[in-house]
């Protein structure tokens, strides 16, 4: 392994090592001392070279004194807040939810630097137990306030057998060079139905990292949507694991990048047992010299026969300088499966543009209509009308927000 080679450490790594030591995470500090931050030579970070992209790490977050307005308002939602890594006291929970706390990070151990950092630095996890179906949208508002800070926070959700819920997480905060490392763990019981949406609305100076680990039980249905629409550098890692027959995942994501931004959605999915299915669908739109990355790995275990999984990534380039990178991977150990992958990338269709313009719609408006149309299938399946409208607002904000 390369880890045995001594590496030259930069300022970001020195700070990380000091921070890890300060919380007593000596093994994690040692790991970074030996290996450094991952470079393009590490396969899962090939397009998001953290050693190059992450030059400095701000001090560990202190409790926040003030909070900015919520980044996204969804009428009727039940709101919970984690500010600068600290779980805020909540209003009375709607029927079916038990709110609590647990020490440390919710993520399972994994050979990944962001997971290790969250494991070492997240002091507590907000825990939600959904005993039965929950009507209002559950919104977890995660924010980093004040001076630039390195914050790690964590959320753990258990969804009981047969329960259903729509969970929205929003990430935002003050306009500073924060580094956020956010963890979410969701376990879906038998026949549970969950929609999980994460939206990054941080300021451009912020670097946003999130890891979502899912355990999908027998007959359970998981729909996810990641939207990157804020931070200058963002990466969301999706680790769904299909663990019971009939488990299904509609894993979706959207990178919206403008000049100078870098957004990465990396999925590593495991179909662990026979008879599970997934439809990962990702879209990227890049303008200026924006860079969007989607990596999608499907692992099918040896006895996970009849797995049905298809990865798709569609890219839309709005400028000649934009970059959209796509890396599908299939790792199949079973012999009776239907698995596939596809990637497309292109510009707006000239014929479609001409058609709309020939009806009197000016070019800019016609382009906006086509981009909205390209994204529609990711949002139109969201059942909650107020939430769908809020997400359309996020997308329109980006579209009309200029370069």
């Amino acid at each position, binding site marked *: 392994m390369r880890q045995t080679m001594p590496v030259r450490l930069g300022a970001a790594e020195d700070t990380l090592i000091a921070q890890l030591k300060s919380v007593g995470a000596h093994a994690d500090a040692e790991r970074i001392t030996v290996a450094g931050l991952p470079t393009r030579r590490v396969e899962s970070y090939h397009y998001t070279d953290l050693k190059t992209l992450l030059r400095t790490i701000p001090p560990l977050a202190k409790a926040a004194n003030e909070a900015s307005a919520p980044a996204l308002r969804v009428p009727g939602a039940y709101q919970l807040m984690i500010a600068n890594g600290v779980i805020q006291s909540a209003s009375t929970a709607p029927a079916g939810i038990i709110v609590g706390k647990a020490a440390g990070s919710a993520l399972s151990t994994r050979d990944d630097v962001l997971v290790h950092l969250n494991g070492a630095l997240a002091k507590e996890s907000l825990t939600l137990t959904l005993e039965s179906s929950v009507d209002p949208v559950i919104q977890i508002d995660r924010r980093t306030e004040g001076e630039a800070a390195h914050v790690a926070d964590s959320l753990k959700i258990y969804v009981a057998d047969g329960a259903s819920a729509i969970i929205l997480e929003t990430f935002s905060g003050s306009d500073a060079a924060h580094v956020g490392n956010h963890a979410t763990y969701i376990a879906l019981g038998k026949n549970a139905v969950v929609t999980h949406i994460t939206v990054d609305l941080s300021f451009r100076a912020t670097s946003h990292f999130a890891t979502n680990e899912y355990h999908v039980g027998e007959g359970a249905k998981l729909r996810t949507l990641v939207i990157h629409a804020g931070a200058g550098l963002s990466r969301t890692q999706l680790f769904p694991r299909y663990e019971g027959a009939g488990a299904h995942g509609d894993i979706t994501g959207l990178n919206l990048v403008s000049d100078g931004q870098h957004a990465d959605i990396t999925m590593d999915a495991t179909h662990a047992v026979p008879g599970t299915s997934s439809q990962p669908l990702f879209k990227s739109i890049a303008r200026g010299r924006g860079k969007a990355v989607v990596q999608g790995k499907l692992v099918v275990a040896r006895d996970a026969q009849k797995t049905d999984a298809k990865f798709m990534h569609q890219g839309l380039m709005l400028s000649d300088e934009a970059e959209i990178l796509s890396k599908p991977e299939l790792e199949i150990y079973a012999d009776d499966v239907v698995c596939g992958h596809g990637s497309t990338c292109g510009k707006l269709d*000239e*014929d*479609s543009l*001409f*058609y*709309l*313009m*020939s*009806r*009197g*719609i*000016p*070019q800019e*408006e*016609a382009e906006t*209509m*086509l981009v*909205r*149309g*390209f*994204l*529609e*299938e990711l949002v*139109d399946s969201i059942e909650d009308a107020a939430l769908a409208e809020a997400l359309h607002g996020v997308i329109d904000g980006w579209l009309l927000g200029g370069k």
Partner: protein
Amino acid sequence: MTTPILEIRNLHARIEEREILKGVNLTIPAGQVHAIMGRNGSGKSTLSYVLAGKEDYEITEGEILLNGVDILDMEPSERAVAGIFLAFQYPIEIPGVATMTFLKAAMNAQRKARGEVEMTTPDFMRAVKEAGAQLNIDSDMLKRPLNVGFSGGEKKRAEILQMALLKPALCVLDETDSGLDIDALQVVSRGVNALRAENRSMLVITHYQRLLNHIVPDVVHVFSDGRIVESGDKDLALQLEAKGYADFDATAA
């Protein structure tokens, strides 16, 4: 004499190095319906795209006047506002854009460009419902994404619906009969005929005489090798149907 709605003078157009229109002259007075007939590849469809302002073509000579105003420097959207409407031979499918949303955007974009107030939603709904009823278009079809999964007949009816709502000065119908069965052809033709008006002209482009039994033209032109080689009344279409285009090729040469 009043200004004709459309006047094309010595129009030459090419795509890359290939010249397709080779000196088209055509005048359509207000209220008239003219038909252009010609075989595949004669340049009929190119003429319709050039009128609507498709970028792929380079105009090397000539002019196009709409109500006396030169439109060659206008964007396709500006030409639409000026009064040109092209009913496409193959209407484009636009996933993710509901037909209703598109119709409203188009109507309001044109109103805005003309300095008129935008339509209220109830007024808009009423206008669409009225125009749709004549074309057997129900609200379910309008909720679907524009042209996506529409049958051939539905696509053409949707084109005529747009024409009825946008009330253009010049309707250009490019092979509107293609892909239509007899029933659909009658519905579409009825829709087109309902739009015939004193202040509106139409240019009907077709291979077949069949369509002209339903939409009866005032003048028929024969198109061959990039220009009009013969003009006459509606009987010229019957003559063409009987004898084919061969005789006219000789005239062109």
